[in-house]
């Protein structure tokens, strides 16, 4: 954690809203991206991201630096927020959204030539079909470019566990993409 950030966190803990605003500016896009790729819906991702920052602002005086980056805490709150979201929305997702995603991917399989945009869309949908831990590692390692060590600290796992998880996640992602193409 850089000194400037530590200073911002200390000021935010003392109740300085503008300091928390700067932390928001820095981390909100990546937390939004993380949530969006997990829930696959822009407005839901916006609501959940807002909740994450509202909660971290409300509870920042309980934040204790333990050698992990501040983003670890944000990702942890974001993961819990997504878990809660799926817990409450489970029936809808089972009956509607997942089948919709599968139908869309299935329909792509009949296309011989897919442009880049469609490929991106296809990968996004494939990510949504991974299990939550595999989603985490794909997003953090390959989209956000975190090192295995940083990813391990964010996910509260060992580096070896992250590398194993990463291996399985990439394999599954390729399998999903190949099965649909």
């Amino acid at each position, binding site marked *: 954690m850089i000194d400037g950030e530590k200073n911002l966190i200390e000021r935010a803990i003392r*109740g300085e*809203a*503008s300091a*928390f*605003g700067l932390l*928001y*500016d820095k981390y*909100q*896009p990546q937390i*939004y*991206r993380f949530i*969006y*790729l997990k829930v696959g819906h*822009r*407005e839901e*991702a*916006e*609501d959940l*991201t*807002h*909740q994450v*920052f*509202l*909660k*971290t*602002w*409300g*509870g*920042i*005086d*309980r934040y204790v630096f333990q050698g992990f980056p501040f983003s670890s*805490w944000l990702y942890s*709150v974001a993961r*819990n927020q997504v878990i809660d979201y799926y817990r409450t929305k489970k029936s809808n997702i089972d009956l509607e959204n997942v089948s919709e995603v599968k139908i869309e991917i299935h329909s792509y399989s009949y296309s011989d030539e*897919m442009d*880049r945009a469609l*490929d*991106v869309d*296809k*990968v*996004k949908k494939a990510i949504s079909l991974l299990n939550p831990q595999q989603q985490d590692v*794909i997003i953090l390692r*390959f*989209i*956000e*470019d975190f090192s295995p060590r940083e990813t391990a600290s964010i996910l509260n796992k060992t580096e070896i566990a992250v590398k194993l998880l990463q291996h399985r996640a*990439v394999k599954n*992602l*390729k399998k999903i*993409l*190949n099965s649909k*193409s």
Partner: protein
Amino acid sequence: MEKDLFKILKELKQIKPDADYSRQSRLFIVNSERTGIPANNPQSSRFRLADVLAFNFPRLALSMGIFVILIIGTVYYVSHQLNQNTLVVKAGEMNDSIQVKLNEIKYLLENKPIDSKNISDIQILIGKAINDLKEASTLDDLDKSLEKIKSAQEIFSQIDASLKISN
């Protein structure tokens, strides 16, 4: 496709939140009162405070009532208004005004002598304001919700004025 996978994953970093949404969300958060709600247990404080409100010591109950209103207001805006940008701006402005009044009322309640008759009147008014905010949170019609919030805002102004006169 497979060999492009990692390139495509990098492209996903271009996903960004809507700028208007980000601005509204940031504004709301930095202007919101720090509620001290634990990050992983957002509901617990709310219900504890609601219990305290029913406590028999009027002044303490009044002070706690102020916090309950703050929290109810926060939960309401987050869960119902976030996607209605124009209304969020209006609600945000009302929220700011309510927050200012609540801070003044809280200060007066904690620092000035108030007779029991006044406390009783203020309790009734705060009860009305809480009801307005609760109703606002359940109404589907957002214009009607805003009317309820406005009504609560006016009640707080009335309480603030009466406390200042009595002191």
